[in-house]
């Protein structure tokens, strides 16, 4: 009997965590208890920034993290965060199929096996004022937390503003920031209606969380258990993608019920977003080199 501790970054009610707990349950059941995974949610065992390296170093055999965290290591990991490259579930699934092999290879170099990935609901624009054409964002302070979010704000003519996650409500409340881009999930979970008023369901991109395993730990398992893990992972991926779609609708409804004005992007805004997306795709391609080009070609061919 093998016991695995699995650190995950998000809280127990988050749909990613719910899905992963189910995954752990499935593995336990399929292996007759031979592999017992304990999920440690909300960074309680290992905090988000340390999860990947902890799995690599064999501190824990398995863990979850958001893929785009690795963007500074390798731009390929933020292909799911290029605006308007893949902006609905169908496209996001294709992009994932096109990028899976190359990302898995990258992770293998770090003794990591990519088990499965589940997207967050599509990213939209949160503001304290209506956004109709996109011009409204000119000159306002937009939250930036890494290079690409900074660039995105710049392309909108907004002022990129650094705000850490726990500080978001205070930053909005006191006017240090006027706009941010995140998913309906995060908006509803942090009760965005306490500190802002408008959500534009712009569907900019669908960032993914991934579950990784230390290759040595994985290969130390008996063949039958390995198969059970792979099977449960495939099932978790399928379930997670469905849950994510359901989550999108549910969380948008919750926001509406709480008085947030939800709108779809106007034609003018879509045009604007496409232009921004095209620029950022070009810039991403420059960073990502040959592998990036191949990835995008494979995606477009699907």
């Amino acid at each position: 009997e093998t016991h695995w501790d699995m650190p995950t970054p998000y809280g127990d009610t988050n749909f990613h965590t719910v899905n992963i707990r189910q995954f752990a349950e499935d593995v336990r059941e399929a292996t007759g208890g031979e592999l017992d995974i304990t999920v440690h949610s909300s960074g309680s065992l290992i905090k988000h920034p340390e999860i990947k390296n902890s799995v690599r170093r064999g501190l824990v055999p398995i863990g979850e993290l958001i893929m785009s965290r690795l963007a500074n290591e390798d731009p390929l990991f933020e292909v799911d965060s290029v605006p308007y490259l893949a902006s609905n579930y169908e496209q996001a699934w294709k992009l994932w199929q096109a990028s899976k092999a190359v990302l898995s290879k990258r992770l293998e170099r770090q003794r990591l096996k990519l088990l499965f990935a589940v997207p967050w609901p599509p990213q939209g624009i949160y503001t304290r004022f209506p956004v109709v054409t996109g011009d409204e964002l000119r000159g306002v302070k937009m939250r930036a937390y890494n290079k690409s979010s900074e660039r995105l704000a710049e392309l909108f003519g907004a002022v990129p503003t650094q705000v850490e996650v726990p500080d978001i409500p205070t930053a909005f409340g006191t006017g240090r920031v006027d706009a941010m881009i995140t998913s309906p999930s995060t908006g509803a979970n942090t009760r965005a209606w306490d500190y802002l008023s408008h959500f534009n369901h712009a569907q900019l991109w669908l960032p993914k969380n991934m579950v990784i395993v230390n290759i040595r730990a994985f290969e130390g398992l008996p063949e039958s258990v390995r198969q059970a893990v792979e099977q449960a992972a495939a099932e978790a991926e399928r379930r997670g993608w469905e849950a994510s779609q359901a989550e999108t609708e549910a969380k948008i409804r919750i926001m509406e019920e709480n008085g947030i004005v939800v709108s779809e992007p106007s034609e003018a805004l879509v045009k604007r977003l496409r232009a921004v997306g095209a620029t950022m795709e070009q810039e991403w391609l420059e960073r990502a080199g040959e592998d990036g080009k191949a990835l995008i070609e494979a995606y477009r061919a699907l």
Partner: protein
Amino acid sequence: MDMIWMSLVLLVGLLLLLGAGLWVAFALTGTALVALHAFSGIPAGDSLATAFYGASVSWELAALPMFIWMGEVLFRSRLSEQMFSGIAPWVGRVPGRLLHTNILGCGIFAAISGSSAATAATIGKMSVPELTRRGYDRRQILGTLAGSATLGLLIPPSIILIVYGVATEQSIARLFVAGILPGLLLMMLFAGYVGLWSRFNPAGVPAEREASLPLVEKIRRSRPLIPVVLLIVGVIGSIYGGLASPTESAAIGVALAHLLSWRGGSLSWRTFVEALMGTVKTSTMIAFILVGAHFLTVSMGFTGIPRELAAWINTLSLSPYLLLLALTVFFVLLGCFLDGISVVVLTTSVILPMVQAAGIDPLWFGIYLVIVVEMSQITPPVGFNLFVIQGLTGENIVRVARAALPYFLLLLAGVVLITVFPQIVTYLPSRMGS
């Protein structure tokens, strides 16, 4: 039961290391190493390295040395002395007199700082020498300080409410608002106790000469308060005026304190360096203990002890009140050995579902949890306010803990009050938003 055996070994181990006089940070680290080696298959050394690194790279934590630095600068300027002589005329007839400055000072400072250690260090640096000089009862000085500094956690902003809010997906804004009334309630409880105590111990509360002055004279003598008020307004104002995040406001406090100290003529190269080196000493000490505590938390997470204990409580299927009673005992015991944030991080996953199943509002529970965790700040052997005050005064933590005992009981009374009258917590947030 296996769990109980493991817990006992670790508790006795920690107590032995601490009792033998091993430095606190090492005692925590050593216990964590024993836990990992003896009770888990985890590579202990690599786990230590990751924990040490992860715990010390923290933006939120950066506020701690800044606030300590602010306290050091104020302590070396005439500002702290002026503050006390400005307040003295007003509290001359209040039972407890200047002892209330600890409570009030901590309460106000709590509105700037998110941590109780920073609150204890900053206020204590000023109030302990001044109150001692004026001849107040040593034990009450330490007790009011240790007790009131815990308010840093409850009165917003609060690091621990952020941790709880993020872990349980509760609105941090609502949690902050919910902490206001209970914070004021606790201040009133503390002030009431000090008043009562001084009735029975008049010798511990020296008379303030300025008490019988006419009103105009009192106001005139309050003028030295202006710089301090400016400092507080500057720091709080920088947050609410949208100029700084709560973490950043700490650095603003340092800059303003230097400015005021320079205006007051007490800033020199010597005092600057002294204050800075004093800050290095205190903040390094606290940060190193935090690093050790984080490693102990991680190792406890790997052994699974807190989870299993919490899960065991769950199997008892208690009524809401009994559940809260059991949880309070559980948290107080855990809080003796772990720091507050660790307690929250390690147990919410198991405890929140049972709390919600019992029909308890998670928002209310967050505030309850913070008050219980506040208690852990002043219980030996591992209590951060005790460590800070020992570092500040040289008084042994056991003595400080004894002085803080009444405040521990008052916090407990606070828990009972918010349980009986949950509106104290829920009223303000219910008026928020839609």
